[in-house]
């Protein structure tokens, strides 16, 4: 059987209950927090993509010198296929220009180039030559020039 969604004073509820929790949630390391009351419920979910990629980014960030963090662009695969490094190979820590081809994803015999967006420095390499990659998979982290 189905639940009925009765109208309640959502705004009032938010003021009274939700804001402090949202603050607490923001300050915490929680990835999900759900609250369930008789007449209403809510859930906070921190948008994370739990993958090797984000772990690497986090690890990289920890090792970085304690300066003001610079933005990191993630270059991701936009097709499914096998990643191949372009020569000359761009190495970790190397500055790269915008639109520089770092490699390509080979799919059904077609080379789909993987290019740098904004110019910067290669901060992370998530992929190796010959690795299979899926749609949206992070390939490189580029610390953007400021």
């Amino acid at each position: 059987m189905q639940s009925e969604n009765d109208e309640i004073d959502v705004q009032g509820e938010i003021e009274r209950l939700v804001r402090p929790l949202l603050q607490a949630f923001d300050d915490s390391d929680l990835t999900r927090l759900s609250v369930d009351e008789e007449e209403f419920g809510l859930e906070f979910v921190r948008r994370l993509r739990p993958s090797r990629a984000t772990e690497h980014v986090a690890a990289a960030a920890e090792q970085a010198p304690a300066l003001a963090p610079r933005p990191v662009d993630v270059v991701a695969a936009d097709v499914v296929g096998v990643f191949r490094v372009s020569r000359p190979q761009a190495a970790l820590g190397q500055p790269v220009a915008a639109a520089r081809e770092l490699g390509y994803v080979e799919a059904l015999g077609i080379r789909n180039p993987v290019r740098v967006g904004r110019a910067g420095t290669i901060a992370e390499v998530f992929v190796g030559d010959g690795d299979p990659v899926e749609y949206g998979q992070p390939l490189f982290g580029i610390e953007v020039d400021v």
Partner: protein
Amino acid sequence: MKKVLIANRGEIALRVNRACHDLGIPTVAVFSEADRDSLHVKRADEAFCVGPAPSARSYLNIPNIISAALISGADAIHPGYGFLAENARFAEICRDHGITFIGPSPDAIRAMGDKATAKRIMVEAGVPVTPGTDIVENLEQARAFAAEAGYPVLIKATAGGGGKGMRAVHAPEELEQALNSASNEAQAAFGDGRVYLEKLISNPRHIEVQVLADTHGGILILGERDCSIQKPSHQKLIEEAPGPRLSAAFRSSLYGVAREAVKAVGYVNAGTLEFLGDGERFYFMEMNTRIQVEHPVTEEIFSIDLVTEQLRVARGEALSRTQDDLHAQGHAIEVRVNAEDPASNFAPAAGTLETVQLPGGPGIRVDTHLYEGSVVPPYYDSMLAKIVAHGADRQEAISRMVRALRETVIEGVRTTVPFCIDVLTDPEYLAGGVDIGYLPRFLVRDARVEAAAAR
């Protein structure tokens, strides 16, 4: 067949996954970014994201799907239903890449996908079709047919689908107008304005026959399903097998015709022949060249697994049974639990499922990708679950289904569950053998009852 890629989502992806695992074959799931946490991804042995949420860029993304098969080492693809299941070009691309497409040949898909070709093949095979014309070249041809067959008649587009280019004509004076507008609509929708005429059968029953054929000449005719409980949009809502109140002569003729049709098409793998039932007569409507949503009702009464049979056939093996092995047992009913509001013309809903309690016990089978906390994305089909009840007879199957629906608790989106309970306890449905006009009539009746109650 070393590994199967499942090019689908939702319950049918899980259904195929189960069949593969039952045969010990590893699986590869594909998913869109909206389905990252879906059950079909969790239950497969491997999974590849093939695109963003919109189907056109993910579940219909042929290059990414083929590429996922190639790099994962999958040597076969099961398309499920919908998406790429009846795409002859996709079947060809699979073949060109050395991948087994688990389904019929591209030629069979193509022939049955073109209504005029399909009808011609069936006529040649002696399959009864609705009295009708070839492509009408001019108004006079149309007039002559309608005068002979009698009004009402139906104008249909040869490239048609989804009601586009279709017009019912009830009187001679409406014919010219209808012909022009149907042709224009078909031209706009399909780039093909050719139309033909058929005798319009008022309120027929939807009776379909499940078939299975292998590459060794083995053919199984797995009885009929009655799918007459359809929404006003002609989408099926409740299906059952066997069809209620059909005579032995009707069945015998139907099965014989189905066998001839399979032979005429040279059909291999699972398919369904759809017919309009009109009293003791039936007319071929179309052939679906794929596994269908409602296949479990056939599985339940014949104790056969249609999807593992699909896999066997695709491996080049013979079907596991012969026609003589098969005896229908009892009665089975399927209800489609959709995230839809029947009170608002079955408008689809999306959301997060706060509570999911599924039914169980004797005679109840559940096929679903739901779990508590799962998300119903707005991008795809609104079907959440299929509940199948099997009983010794129709009455027991209905009792079990009503009990199962009453046990079902889904909170977070509106579903068709309460509405289906109303239908399944309606005396007209209980009597059996309703036509496709039943559900629209029921909706009107129901609205009147509610309006009267509200006064």
